[in-house]
């Protein structure tokens, strides 16, 4: 490559550089619908009122707040027979909570979003006895961003709220842990 060609290529690249801006991820502006976990009463409307065939509202798990207990009240239903993974013991109607043994005495709970229907049954169980680490959120990659969210219109506790697009989720305050 001659010096002339190198100069041409450099100038060409510099002239083309502004076009790269087109591919840069833009900062999101505006507002999204989201659920305030402290106001949510797990009424079940998130499952049935969303315009999507399967609701964009899913259970999410805030691991920092979880106790990783053997007996998770979000995982096990009130009339469980035994503390194992048999269907009759579980609270989730679609088996969307995946439980994995970590090490004694801890178990990890993950949400399988493909199965979760946003009914909030596990959230109610977790809020009743546990740390409240399970809660419902509108998942951004699924939401159609209807300007007039149908769930927000019928939410009985006013838990649906607008949040800035750059902070689209509302987290729970993790429990205080002595360092």
């Amino acid at each position, binding site marked *: 490559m001659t010096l002339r060609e190198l100069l041409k290529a450099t100038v060409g690249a510099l002239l083309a550089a502004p076009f790269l801006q087109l591919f840069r991820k833009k900062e999101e502006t505006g507002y999204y619908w989201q659920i305030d976990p402290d106001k949510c009463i797990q009424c079940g409307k998130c499952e049935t009122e969303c315009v999507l065939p399967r609701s964009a509202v899913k259970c999410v798990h805030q691991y920092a707040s979880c*106790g990783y207990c053997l007996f998770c009240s979000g995982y096990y239903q009130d009339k469980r027979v*035994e*503390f194992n*993974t048999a269907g009759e013991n579980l609270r989730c109607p679609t088996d969307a909570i995946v439980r994995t*043994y970590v090490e*004694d*005495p801890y*178990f990890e709970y993950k949400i399988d979003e493909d199965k979760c229907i946003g009914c909030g049954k596990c959230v109610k169980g977790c809020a009743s*006895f546990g740390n409240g680490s399970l809660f419902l959120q509108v998942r951004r990659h699924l939401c159609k961003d209807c300007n007039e969210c149908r769930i927000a219109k019928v939410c009985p506790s006013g838990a649906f709220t607008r949040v800035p697009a750059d902070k689209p989720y509302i987290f729970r305050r993790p429990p205080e842990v*002595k360092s």
Partner: protein
Amino acid sequence: MIERIFDIALRTMFVLTACAGIWHYVSFVTPRVVDYAVPVRDGSEFRVIKKMTTKIGETFKSFSAESIVKPFDGEWPCFRGAKRDNLVQEDRPLTKNWGAEGPKVMWRKELGEGYSGAIIAQGRVYLLDYLEKEDSDALRCFELLTGNELWQRSYKNPIRRNHGKSRTIPAYADNVVVTLGPAAHVMATDATNGDLLWSCDLVEQYGCEIPQWYAGQCPLIENGNVILGVGGEKVLMAALDLKTGKTLWETPNPDHLKMSHSSVVSTKLCGVEQFIYAGIGGITACDHDGKPLWTCKSWKPAVWAPTPLKIADDLLFLTAGYGAGSALLRVHLTNGIFEATIENEWKPTKGPASEQQTPLLIGKTLFVIQPKDAGGLHAQLVAADVDKLPALRATSGKEARFGLGPYLYADDAFWIMDDDGFLHVYQFKDDTFQKLATHKVVPGVDAWGPIAYAGGLMILRDSTSMACLDLRKEDAK
């Protein structure tokens, strides 16, 4: 001719193949992938519960060369006080007008994370703490009036944090302090100098299973005997000699009840003195010689923390959390044979219930703070007549909610700790709960450890610290 036959056959085959293909395409249904919700899908078959040999009481530290402790009039010798009812019997008036500063704090101490409660005896405070840096359970002895630590008797017990570590309340009698640690290690020490008297590992000796979130049972001392709900492979309850630890009697465990967080209760039902233990799988009773009297397996919560409460000569109030609610257990005695049956049961939304703390019985009225699954009544203090259960007589209202914290009754008022370390004082008058005072008395959260009270002093804790409040009026000191 052969060519023609071959041609027809070929065409027929083509048509048949095409028909078969179309038929298959039309009728084919993608098989559904079914995940069977079978019992073991979480890897729990590989669960290994580490068992380590513990030399209970192996370490002793003395902090004060000066062993003279100022005498103090008043005791809180065990879980729920001397009568195990959480009712303070003395007539001493307590200060309730605290002002902006709150009640006087005599001293504060940092603790390992947990919910264990203190006892008071001989002017000393005893607490089974967990020493985080040393991975040890430790019986810590403090001087009541100064908070100075006198000694520690500890032993290695490297357990992982599972909603805190410490849980239980020691028991004191005849200058002996008995503790039951989170891993069911029983230790008896001399209350004055901390000398180890005897010890017992309930897992090793009886093959019991540690309950979820570690053992929460508080030992019972009765007539020189230590009574424990063991829930072992063969033994359900056991009595050990207070001074020597020698086994005095054991009750069999044919129903395979397991250890719960509930503590053994000593009471008289149908005119017979008995020890009652609410284990996982049922509730049972034996006489003072360990002879089984009755068992009831028709009400069996998965987690059982509050102790059964006698509300009539033949009636027990049972309550537990995690969806269980409450029940009434009637005990019948016919021709020397006991029988126990569940008479009525209800969910927390329908009547009084508790998850952790044992309710109070004052006269014929039951007082309890409702659990989180009690609907609109959650965390409210409620009152109910024992003759009209589960009907409620009064509630503290939605503006007065407390949580899982402890409460006791002293100087005609309820002293209630909420989850965030606020101490609330409420009076019950004319079927109404009236707030007298409230103040944040401990800095942390999860203030669930039961309260100890003696002579106007109150020991309270949050998850990581303990405080001694002086509630005595100036003229009464």
